[in-house]
């Protein structure tokens, strides 16, 4: 279902810092996520995972350092930049609009070609075709999360950022999400996501990074070490 990504985008964090009123959320984080890699960020609440993802999505300006994507022309214009897909804690869709209206709105804003066709295909992919005309406020949390993921997939992004994407999903929903993310990973999309603990989704990871108090305390791509990094062994 997921089209092959023509040129996967790598993500480069160089000495990224973020301070909120003197408190450090991130301290000189330097990372390089290779194109097509599937990276899981682990760490306790407040360790800086969400801040790192929001900086990568360019929703938060870092206090210091720089984030760049491979394949960007380096210009200041929005059109020069890679636009990653982003799934956050919140659903980022309007409760007062239907699932279809929400997706059409964001498809048109992003200049998706033939938006009606793309939206219909995505609604089918997230198994919401029958409820496409229902207001999102009538949806369960799991259904809203499906709309949120469909929104992030509208442009078939070359990089995807996901902040605890399994929030609110039941075991069936988690299996569906794991399948969707596996399809994206296999299609060459770069995935960077935060998760709590090990799950069906973390099993997709090719690399695990652990954050603590805004710094990287673990980074591995080896199976056994990966479990330790994701589970927070030693803490």
């Amino acid at each position, binding site marked *: 279902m997921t089209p092959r990504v023509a040129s996967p985008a790598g993500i480069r964090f160089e000495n990224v810092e973020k301070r909120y009123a003197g408190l450090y959320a991130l301290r000189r984080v330097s990372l390089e996520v290779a194109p097509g890699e599937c990276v899981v960020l682990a760490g306790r609440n407040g360790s800086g995972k969400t801040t790192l993802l929001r900086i990568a999505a360019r929703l938060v300006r870092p206090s210091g350092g720089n984030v760049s994507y491979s394949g960007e022309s380096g210009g200041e214009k929005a059109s020069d930049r890679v636009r990653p897909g982003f799934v956050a804690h919140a659903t980022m869709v309007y409760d007062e609009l239907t699932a279809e209206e929400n997706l059409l709105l964001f498809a048109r*804003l992003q200049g998706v070609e033939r938006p009606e066709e793309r939206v219909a295909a995505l609604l089918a992919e997230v198994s919401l075709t029958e409820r496409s005309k229902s207001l999102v406020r009538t949806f369960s949390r799991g259904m809203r999360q499906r709309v949120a993921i469909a929104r992030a997939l509208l442009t078939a992004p070359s990089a995807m950022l996901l902040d605890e994407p399994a929030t609110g999903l039941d075991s069936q929903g988690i299996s569906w999400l794991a399948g969707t993310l596996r399809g994206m990973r296999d299609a060459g999309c770069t995935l960077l996501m935060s998760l709590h603990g090990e799950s069906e989704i973390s099993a997709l990871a090719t690399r695990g990074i652990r954050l603590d108090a805004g710094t990287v305390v673990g980074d591995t791509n080896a199976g056994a070490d990966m479990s330790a990094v994701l589970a927070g062994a030693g803490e």
Partner: protein
Amino acid sequence: MSLLANTGVLLGKELKTEFRSRELLTTTVVFIIIVLVLFSFTFDPLSDEARRFGSGLLWLAFLFAASLMLQPCFLREQANDTLSALRLSVSDPFAIFLAKLAANTLFLMITELLLLPVFAVMYSVPVLGVLHWLTLVFFLGSLGVSTAGTALSSISAQARMRELLLPLLLLPMLTPILIASTEVTAALLDRSPYVLWKGIGFLVAFDIVFLTALWLFGEYLLEE
């Protein structure tokens, strides 16, 4: 996608959500009627005083209503973090402001034009002969109120005590609009109506200055 195309798409969303719920329009119209009725208790609305003070009372009511109407403008976007989704989707963040201020101007204009006949009857002021000029003043005044109000709403939505902050910031900033709009409206409601071009020029200048400021600095107002 171009700024205007994005603005058009977002304006459609603003209108669809409001006309589906009609929350803002209904609340604001009821609020202004209550304010106008309460004002009418403070003096004899059928006397000459109505002509002297009517325009000021009308614009005060509009400003209070605007502070009520503008409050949810960005607060609505916080519930599900939809503002972040918009920022990720538009090529120019000014489109978000343009759509919101266009919608707010339209809602204010609708409210004002709905309330004008009520005001005319309650305060015994003939308005039909100068309706086109009044519509122009309402448009220029509403545009200024919406531009400043939309910008301040984006700031107050991220602050603590946000319900209090917006009127506290907005009302002093809109004093120049209140004065100019009141003077132009008073001249139009005079026994011998005339157009106060100086006031209209001031309103146009205010709108241009605030729109330019919003275009230049709006992006920073949306940052977390």
